[in-house]
């Protein structure tokens, strides 16, 4: 572990946004926005440099304070973390640009929400910290940084619905964190270490480990709005300001998923059974169907998009049953591990791009119409063709039609499902796609329909529409470097591994 090359980048990835967020506090409204935007761009560029560093040097670490684990904390930037950080950077940059223009356009009436900027930079620092963290407790702290800043962003509009949804979100987030932390306490009590790498070696199966796994998983499921803990997500995401909704659903929920993936694959292999994988997969499957159906039934654009997040996150959970091998199957013979991992990573990235674009488009529509009831989308194509195009492209990626990133995810997921012989997940994937097609095309149908009465479309800055479109296109463009991306990910340790479960307890399997 410690013979890996060290790099200062991980420290900067967390420190820089915090520094800029703090500095921005010294400025008044407009200055905050300027510093905030500059800070976002700087952080984004820094993250891309860091990603480049990892492609060049492989996994890098940063031993904070010079104290090696288990006493100290280690930041570890492996290819998986680098990809998540890079995704955050790209999506973050465009959302920042959008936010800058969006808030400036409303400055006169709302004051321009200057607090957005420090909170968003804190959130970004939290996300980077989470992706880099290699320490169970530090993950808790980053989760809290993310949780508080995310809720604060969500209630920024000050509207009643946003506040109520925000409080519910916050209480749920705290509950999730505390459940997670209880698991951490038990793990620490039984091993005396918090470092993920060390834990992977020393953790023994047993009642305590299983219980810790249970509460940690529950806590993280709550945070990532996995079924049946999805109830808080639609109101919170739909009532926030547009750039915030985009951040919340594109990035924030992915943080909890990332930890869940990491912990299951790197730490808790010993306690995982085939049934555990099936169970979490079932939760995902229900989320896919339920979320899509709910989205289909909504009548306001942001609620559709928010419910769709529940479904899309369900797909993420569906990779777990594929990663946990049935008793007797070895990781070497399981040829579906790489497709399943690819499906997971691509689902995360494609959803981030597409969903961000969707919410940004919704923001544009709200700006133009003053509300987001879908029947007012009639003749959207005639009024705002770029936004309509962005919705269409992002929607196509959500459905998983080729050649989008969503297609890549669904293809790999379905491939993994067939290769592993767990065919019972296949109808879920397809039904989910069809339902998604249902609500996406419901929107498009309206967009093409003639206007019944003259809707007053107020003019909207073109740059906003372009931001949404670029993100939508991004959900397609990410397919092009897929081969390189997967090779890069495979150079890391965790990508492509599976858990070999044995009937009693299990044994830790890495190939």
């Amino acid at each position, binding site marked *: 572990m410690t013979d890996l090359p060290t790099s200062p980048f991980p420290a900067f990835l967390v*420190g820089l946004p915090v520094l800029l967020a*703090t500095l921005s506090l010294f400025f008044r409204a407009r200055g905050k926005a300027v510093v905030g935007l500059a800070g976002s761009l700087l952080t984004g560029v820094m993250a891309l440099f860091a990603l480049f560093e990892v492609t060049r040097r492989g996994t890098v670490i940063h031993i904070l304070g010079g104290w090696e684990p*288990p006493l100290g904390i280690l930041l570890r930037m492996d290819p998986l973390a680098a990809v998540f950080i890079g995704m955050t950077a790209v999506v973050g940059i465009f959302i920042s640009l959008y936010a800058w223009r969006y808030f400036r356009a409303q400055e006169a009436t709302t004051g321009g929400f200057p607090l957005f900027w420090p909170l968003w930079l804190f959130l970004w620092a939290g996300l980077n*910290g989470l992706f880099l963290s290699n320490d169970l407790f530090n993950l808790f702290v980053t989760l809290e940084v993310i949780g508080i*800043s995310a809720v*604060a*962003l969500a209630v920024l509009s000050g509207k009643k619905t946003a506040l109520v949804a925000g409080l519910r979100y916050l209480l749920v987030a705290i509950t999730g964190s505390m459940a997670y932390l209880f698991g951490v306490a038990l793990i620490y*009590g039984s091993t005396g270490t918090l470092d993920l790498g060390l834990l992977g070696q020393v953790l023994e199966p047993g009642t305590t480990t299983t219980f810790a796994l249970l509460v940690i998983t529950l806590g993280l499921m709550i945070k990532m709005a996995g079924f049946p803990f999805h109830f808080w997500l639609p109101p919170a995401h739909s009532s926030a300001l547009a750039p915030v909704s985009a951040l919340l659903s594109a990035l924030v929920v992915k943080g909890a998923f990332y930890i869940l993936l990491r912990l299951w694959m790197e730490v808790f292999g010993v306690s995982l059974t085939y049934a555990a994988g099936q169970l979490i997969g079932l939760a995902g499957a229900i989320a896919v169907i339920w979320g899509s159906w709910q989205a289909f039934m909504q009548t306001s654009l942001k609620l559709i998009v928010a419910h769709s997040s529940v479904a899309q996150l369900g797909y993420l959970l569906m990779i777990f049953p594929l990663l946990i091998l049935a008793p007797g199957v070895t990781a070497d013979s399981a040829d579906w591990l790489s497709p399943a991992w690819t499906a997971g990573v691509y689902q995360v990235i494609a959803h981030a791009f597409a969903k961000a674009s969707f919410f940004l488009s919704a923001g544009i529509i709200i700006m133009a119409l003053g509300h987001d009831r879908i029947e007012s989308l009639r003749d959207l194509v005639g009024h705002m063709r770029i936004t309509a195009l962005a919705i269409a492209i992002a929607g196509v990626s959500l459905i998983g039609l080729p050649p989008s990133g969503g297609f890549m995810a669904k293809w790999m997921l379905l491939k993994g499902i067939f290769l592993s012989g767990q065919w019972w997940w296949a109808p879920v994937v397809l039904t989910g796609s069809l339902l998604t097609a249902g609500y996406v095309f419901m929107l498009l149908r309206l967009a093409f329909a003639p206007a019944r009465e003259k809707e007053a479309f107020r003019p909207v800055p073109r740059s906003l529409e372009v931001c949404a479109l670029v993100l939508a296109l991004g959900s397609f463009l990410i397919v092009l470097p897929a081969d390189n991306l997967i090779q890069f990910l495979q150079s890391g340790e965790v990508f492509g591994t599976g858990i070999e479960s044995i009937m009693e307890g299990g044994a830790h399997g890495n190939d």
Partner: protein
Amino acid sequence: MSVLIDGLLAILAIYLALQSLLAPRLIKSVFLFFAFGLALALAWVRLGAVDVAITEAAIASGFLGVLFLDALRDFSPAFPAKQKNPEAAHNVLVKNNTKSLLLSRIPLGLGLGLFLLIALEAVWKTPEGGGLTAAAEAFLPESGVEHPVTAVLLNFRAYDTWLEIGVILMGLLAIFAVGGIKVYRKPNMAAQDPMLRQVIMFFTPVLFLFGAFLLYFGKTGPGGAFQAAVLWGAIGILLHLGGKSIIEEIPRWLRQLILTVGILFFLVLGFLFVAGGNALFEYPRAYAGLLILIIETLAAISIAAALTAIFANLNQMKEDPNETESIN
């Protein structure tokens, strides 16, 4: 004997926790919660965690309790001083609860009971991991401080602590984000109320000195930045209640500086180490003690200011959105 004390304390804590959730009146809940915090603090002492006990008593029980009490001015139906018809308020609460109580709580209760059994089993069977005592002990001489908890907080795991200072600042920003904070000049009550003036005049130096003491001796014994910060924050809260809200009366740049100096200094110092080829928060050994003391002092100032501001802002929350002005 000791088992008996611990057992009673444990039962007390559980009782208080349950009661604070079940008490029919809100004010009772809050006071029971206060008591619960103190019971926990006693438990920390029994477990030899004096630092935690101080933190718990000061922040979780004290500061938060004050916030809750202040909040009750809003949710006042059960607050005795203002309450007109306690019976009615009580009835409303009970009425609201009984119907759903029976329906929803039976499965919830069963589920929680089962969960509790598993949890107890898991906790009981926790194998001995050995902890990190030995490691901490081995590296303590190199940490620059003598008190192991301070060493962990500000050296071994300084990163967590730094983020945590950030969390407090964020908590303040988050409260701004909620909105509805009205900045208005409170009447200077201290001038009118000699009693209050005396209290402030007596407690300000005491709290300050005790805080400084905790801060300084955090190096060698229990105490440190957080505990000191709460005491200093208490000064701010007292002054605010007395009508002299220092955090709002100083110039804006100074206020922001005070609020951020802890996290900023910590971070910039860390970056300097990185620039010098070390890791973030990797102090040069010779100066570790001094630097930690400076960091702690500045952090304590920032945290105290943040706590004061959190209280002041919550205290000043008012409905009228038009007069909302972010003091930030």
